[in-house]
């Protein structure tokens, strides 16, 4: 071992400890999902043979579970997918408009929109609930997505990333007779692919993981999403810890898979507007 590596030994030790601490609770969740509730609540640390029973408990839904696994999974997928598609379309259009057609008036409007970043979700939750209930959108996909389709963060992300967009390309397209909206779909979108990927990952994850607003707006049991479903599992007087961890596993699986495949895009997404 050379001198440089030897000097790094404390760093390695520190990083290994941090890595273990970071991964351990997830490993524990994975093993707990295969164990009976007794074993889980007594801290058994290895895989067991109870996964089928835990899984079945989720499928059947014990009497106090308000909804069932597949319906919650399906809702989560549909809601998150619809939100991702709409949010990307609407926010990228806005980012495109603000950056590539920018005028003083638009800059002022952008500044005002940014202030919405300071507005806490808990403050708008009650008026939004009244609004959705008046519009008969409670427990619907629209009630779920409407407040979070257009966000200042997403618009800013597309705007910042459009900074280096070659204006010459737009002029060339205009000479070729393309309309402004055609430039967006035919030239802007393909060039901004990587921004779209990062934005899609982060929007999907946020929608999948949302809890406070869904809890307010998704009143009907059959409209529940995964976070609501698993939170309900932990609501009874006696908690089936094995089934609970199996539920947590199902809730985490899609986002963990996305994380492993698209980690770079995920990191770009959360730091997206900072450039």
């Amino acid at each position, binding site marked *: 071992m050379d001198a440089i590596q030897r000097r790094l030994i404390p760093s390695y030790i520190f990083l290994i400890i941090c890595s273990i601490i*970071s991964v351990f609770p*997830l490993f524990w969740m994975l093993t707990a999902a295969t164990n009976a509730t007794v074993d889980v609540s007594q801290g058994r640390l290895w895989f067991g043979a109870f996964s089928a029973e835990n899984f079945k408990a989720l499928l059947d839904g014990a009497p106090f579970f308000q909804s069932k696994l597949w319906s919650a999974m399906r809702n989560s997928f549909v809601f998150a997918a619809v939100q991702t598609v709409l949010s990307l379309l609407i926010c990228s259009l806005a980012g495109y408009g603000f950056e590539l057609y920018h005028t003083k008036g638009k800059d002022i409007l952008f500044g005002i929109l940014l202030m919405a970043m300071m*507005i806490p979700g*808990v*403050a708008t939750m009650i008026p939004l609930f009244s609004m959705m209930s008046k519009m008969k959108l409670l427990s619907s996909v629209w009630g779920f997505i409407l407040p979070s389709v257009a966000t200042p963060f997403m618009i800013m992300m597309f705007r910042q990333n459009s900074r280096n967009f070659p204006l010459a390309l737009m002029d060339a397209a205009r000479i070729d007779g393309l309309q402004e909206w055609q430039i967006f779909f035919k030239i802007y979108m393909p060039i901004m692919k990587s921004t779209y990927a990062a934005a899609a990952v982060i929007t999907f994850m946020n929608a999948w993981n949302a809890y406070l607003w869904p809890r307010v707006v998704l009143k009907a049991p059959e409209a529940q999403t995964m976070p609501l479903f698993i939170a309900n599992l932990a609501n009874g007087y006696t908690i089936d*810890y094995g089934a609970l961890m199996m539920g947590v596993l199902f*809730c985490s699986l899609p986002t963990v898979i996305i994380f492993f495949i698209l980690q770079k895009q995920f990191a770009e997404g959360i730091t997206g507007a900072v450039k």
Partner: protein
Amino acid sequence: MEKKTNRWGWAFLIVASAMIMIFSFYPMFSALIMSFKTGSSANMKWATPWYNNYLRMFKDKTFITSLKNTFLYLIIQVPVMLVLAILLAQLLNNPNLKCRGLFRTCIFLPCAISLVSYSLIFRTLFYDTGMINTILMKLGIIHENIKWLGQTGTARAVIITALIWRWTGYNMVFYLAGLQNLDYQVYEAAQIDGANGWKTFWHITVPQLRPVIIMTFIMSINGTLQLYDESVNLTNGGPAGTTMTMSHHIYNTAFQGKANFGYAAALSFVVFILVAILAAINLKVGDTRD
């Protein structure tokens, strides 16, 4: 021609702008109006006096506890997490380090799971006879199970630990991005000049990251003031409401038991004002240090 293009520009941004107006600014404004009223959905009346909801807060023990909790989490959790994140970013930025990708992935991994999920995992880990107690017993550190979530002090500590676990990697990613533009040779030059690890940390890494640090600080404050998922799912506000956060209290006031939209709106306005004030202070402090 110029005018026509400009009009297209407005057309592109109008949908998103209108939606932010309708679903953020307008509800914020109605929350303000609502905060001077009392009752829930259909039957709301003006409060007497009109600022009654704001007076009521000072006598609301749960609210005062939740306010204290929020600041406790802010003061302990945010600095510990951010310092740890900067430290990790500095270590991982060293090009001589092996397995950087693996370490980065492991530390970043907690961000992949939802707040509800990790709250439930920590709840199971810290259960009365659960994993943590079992390990501590086996190691002989404790002789009887600690009721982690049954006592105010330890329950708060568990929440803080859980928050640090979930968010350190998240912040580290920001710092890694911020350090990317820094030439690593600066560190090597400093080391030749005899600067030790801490010196390079405070004199090279921290100044380089200052704008990112301010931003992560604002984000963390914003997040802490709005903590909800952990309070509901990890401790359920307990024992006896002593770990409850402001958002949790607001949700309960608005939607559970005797619903009171007006009072909840007033409470939520306090959260809004706190977010604004703390962010402003942060920006100001960040500015004058130049």
